[in-house]
C-alpha cells in the first residue's frame, strides 16, 4: 500500500503562485480561501542577497495533531497516510486550526467546514498528480509513494537530503529541500 508524500525544492520555487491558484480552481474554493500559504525569507545584505520562498500547506503529519484533537473524528488519516476531512462530520469548532503547527487549515465561510490540502486525493486515485504538482512551472514539487524506494519522491528525498520543514514538530509527509 502506498504512503503518499511530497518534496518541495525551495531552491527552485520562483514564488509564482501557480500552485495556489490551481489548487483553488481544483477545489472550487472561494478566492479568499487557500490551502497553500507562502513565506519569504530574505538573507544577506545588498548586493549579496538570497531570497527563499517557502510554500506551506497541510504536511499530512504521521501523528497529526488535528486528527487527535478533532472531537467528532471529522478529520481522519487514510491508510495511505492522507489526512482528510469529512465535511458532514465537521462542526466548525476550529480545534484543528488551533492544533495545527503549520497554520494549514482554513474555514470555508460558506459551509463552516474547516478544510485543508488533501493531496488532491481524487486525482491521485486516478493515477494523476495533485494539481499543485502538475502545474509547478519549475518542477519544484515531486509527489509519490514514500514507501517505494524507487519512486521519484523517495529518490529525491535521499539524493537531496530533504527534511521536514520542522522535524522538531513531529513526522511530516512533505519534505523540503532548502
Amino acid at each position: 500500500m502506498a504512503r503518499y508524500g511530497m518534496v518541495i525544492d525551495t531552491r527552485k520555487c520562483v514564488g509564482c503562485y501557480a500552485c495556489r491558484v490551481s489548487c483553488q480552481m481544483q477545489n472550487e474554493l472561494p478566492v479568499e480561501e487557500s490551502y497553500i500559504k507562502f513565506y519569504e525569507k530574505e538573507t544577506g545584505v545588498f548586493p549579496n542577497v538570497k531570497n527563499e520562498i517557502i510554500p506551506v500547506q497541510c504536511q499530512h503529519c504521521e501523528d497529526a495533531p488535528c486528527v487527535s484533537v478533532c472531537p467528532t473524528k471529522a478529520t481522519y488519516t487514510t491508510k495511505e497516510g492522507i489526512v482528510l476531512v469529512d465535511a458532514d462530520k465537521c462542526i466548525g469548532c476550529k480545534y484543528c486550526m488551533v492544533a495545527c503547527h503549520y497554520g494549514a487549515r482554513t474555514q470555508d465561510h460558506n459551509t463552516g467546514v474547516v478544510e485543508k490540502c488533501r493531496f488532491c486525493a481524487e486525482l491521485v486515485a486516478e493515477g494523476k498528480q495533485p494539481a499543485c504538482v502538475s502545474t509547478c512551472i519549475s518542477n519544484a514539487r515531486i509527489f509519490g509513494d514514500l514507501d517505494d524506494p524507487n519512486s521519484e519522491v523517495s529518490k529525491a528525498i535521499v539524493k537531496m537530503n530533504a527534511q521536514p520543514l520542522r522535524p522538531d514538530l513531529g513526522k511530516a509527509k512533505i519534505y523540503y529541500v532548502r
Partner: protein
Amino acid sequence: MVETKLSRRGFIKASAATAALASAGTVGFNEWSKNYVKAGANAVVKEIPSTCNACSSKCGMIGHVKNGRLWKLTGHPDHPYSKGKLCARGHGYATVVYSKDRLTQPLKRIGEKKFEPISWEQAYREIAEKLNKIIKAHGPQSVALTEDPRASGKFYSPRFINALGSANYYTHHVVCSNARDAGFLHTVGVTATSADISNAKYIMFIGRSYGDGIRPSSVQSLASAKDNGAKIVIVDPRLNNTGNLATEWLAIRPGTDLALVLAMSHVLIKENLHDMEFIKNFTVGFEEYAQELKKYTPEWAEGITGIPADAITRIATDMGKAKPKALIEQSWRGAFGCNYENSTETGRAVAMFNALLGNYQQKGGSIFGGKPTLGKLDKAKHPSPKEPEVPKAGSKEFPIAYPENGVATIVAKEALEGKMKAAIYYHSNAALGYGNPKVMKEALSKMDLVVAIDVQMSETAQLAHYVLPEVTYIERDEVIEGLSGKVPGIALRQQMVDKVHPETKPIHEIYTELAKACGVGQYFNFTLDELNETMLAPTGITYKQLREKGTIMFPNEEITIGELPKLKTPSGKVEFYSETYKAAGFKPIVEWIEPKVSPADDSFRLITGKQAIHSHTQTANIPILMQITKDYDLERIWINPVRAKALGIKDGDMVELKSSEATSKIRVKVTERIHPEAIFVPSHYGITSKDLKTGYGVGFGYMEHVPFDFEKWSGSGNIHEVIVKVRKVNG
C-alpha cells in the same frame, strides 16, 4: 475529447456516500476514492484544448468543463510554451468569463463616463457613418487601430484598417519590446531569436525574469539547465523572482546594461575568445566594430554600471570559454531591463555579443526558429484590401522601428496635433498602459471617434464614444496560430463554454459586420471556419483533428542545428556595421548612450516589472489573482534599507512618491533585493475605472509617473526614464 467524471464539491454535496464511508473512522484510500467517484458520477467533465489569453504568450491549455461551466484549466502537454503547465495568471484569468464586471451589450457615450446601451445594428451604423465621414474629410490616414494582438486580431485587425485605406495598425509593443525588436532586426534580421536554454552552459539574463514574466516551458528549461550545472547570471537592479534559479546576481545600476554588454564584448575580443570562424563567414563590419570597442574597457564600465571590472572580465571570459553554449537571452519587455533611451542600442549590442560567441543556430545558443507553412485565402474569391497609399503614421519619424508593430503612441501625438481623428482600440487599454495616462486620455478625448472593443469597462473604454462587448476567449474560436521555434507547429483557440451574455460577439464577427456597414464587406466574404480550413490545407491536418488536439507540432520540420539561414538583413549577415542606421541618421557602429535622466543623492530612478500574477491591466480585476496581491501586500514599492533608513522609512510605512508627472501614496517594502538608486513599482496596478470593482483603487499606476516620450531610435516609450522623490507620510 476525453471525458472523465470528477467533482469534489459535487461529491461533498452528494454526501450520503461520504457519511457512510467516514463513519468507519480510518478508511482506506481506495475505498474513499471509489465512493468519491460514485458520488460525483453525474458530473461529466469535458476536456477541451485551447490557448490561454492571460498574457501575450498564448500557451496551450486544456479547459475542464463541468456541466457546461469552466471548472479548471491544465497546461497543454504538447504546446511548446506550456509543456503541461500553466502559471497563476493562466489558471486565474479564465474566471473572467464569469466576471460580474463584464460588458454585456454595445454602449454609446452620452456624457462624461455616461453610457447608454444600444443595439449592434445602431452601433455598426453610427460607427460606419462617422468613420466614413472622417475618412472623406481628412483622408484614411486620420484613422488608426491599436491592439494587443491575439490570433484572430493579428489577422482581422490589420485587414480591417487596411480595408478602410489606412496603414495605421499598431500593437502594444511600444511599451514592451519595440527597442529590442529594432536593435535585433537591423543586426540579425529578426526581432527576436529564441534561446536554447536547456542545452546552454552559461546564460545571462538582462532585466528579464522567467519567474515573473512567465512562459512555463522557459522556467522548466531553466530549472533543468540549473540541474545540469549551467551558470545562470541575472543582471537586474532588483533581485527578481528568478533569482532562486541563478548562480549570480549582478545588481547593476539601472539604465547601464549597455555599458556592461559593450565591456563584455571588449573582453571577448581582447582575450581572443570570439568565434573568428563565425565572424568571417556570417558577419559584416567586424573590423570597425572591434576598433570602436577598444575604448569600452571593464574599468570604464565599472564606473558606469557599479559592477566590479574583475567580475565583468571573469564573466565575459567564462562565457567565451563556454561558447557556443553561452548566450545573453533575447529578453522581451523593452530590451533590456526595460525602456531607456539606450535600449535599442542595448538590443543591438546583445545581438552582436551573441554573434561574437558564434551561438546562432547552435545547441545551447540563440535559435532562428522555423515557421509552419499555412495556406492563404484565394485572392480571386476573397480579395485583399489594396496597399494603403499613405505610409503608417510614425514610420517617417522612426524609420528604424519594426514596421509591423509600429509606434502606437504616435496615434496619441497626432491626435493632440489634430491630425488623427479616429482610433479603434481592440483588446488594448492604451489610456492606462501606453505611457502617461494624462496625455493619453487627453489625446483620446481630442478625437472625433474612439471605439473600444473589450470584455470589461477599461479606462480606454470609458473614454470611447462606442464600446463593443466581445465574448471572452473561453467563449470563442479564433484564427489558427502558427508556432515558430526549433520545431514549428500550430495551435487553436476554441470555444469551451456557451456564450454567457447573448449580446456579446467574437472579434471576427465584429470586424466582418462592421466592415459591411463601412462598405468594405467584400474583404470579409468568408467565415472563420473557411479561413481556418484554408490555412490548414497545406499541412495535411484536418480541422477536426486540430480541434481534438488543440496543439499539433511538426517534428519533421525541425530546424537543422549548425545551419545558419540567410539572414534578413540587407547584407544577409549579422551586421556589426549597419548602413540602415547610417541612412536613418544614427551611428552605424554600436556606441555607449547615456540614459536620458539620472537620479541625484536625494532622488531615485523609478523602475517597473512584472509580477507572476498580473499582466498588463487586464488581470487587475480578476478576484482570484488580486486576492494574492492583498494577501501578500504585493502592490508595495521596493526600497533599499540604507536609503529607507536615511529617509526615516520603515517596512510597511506609507510614503509619498513624487515625480514630474504625479504624486502617489503607497506603502513600502524595505528589502535588500533592490539597488539603492532605484524604486521598484510592480505592474500593473492603479485601475481608475470604477466599473472594475476588484482592481479599482489597489496600488497606483506606474505609468502615471512616466513622461509622454519617444525613444529616438525605435519610438519606444521611455518608461524607465523617470526620477522620483520619496518621503514618509501618515497612512
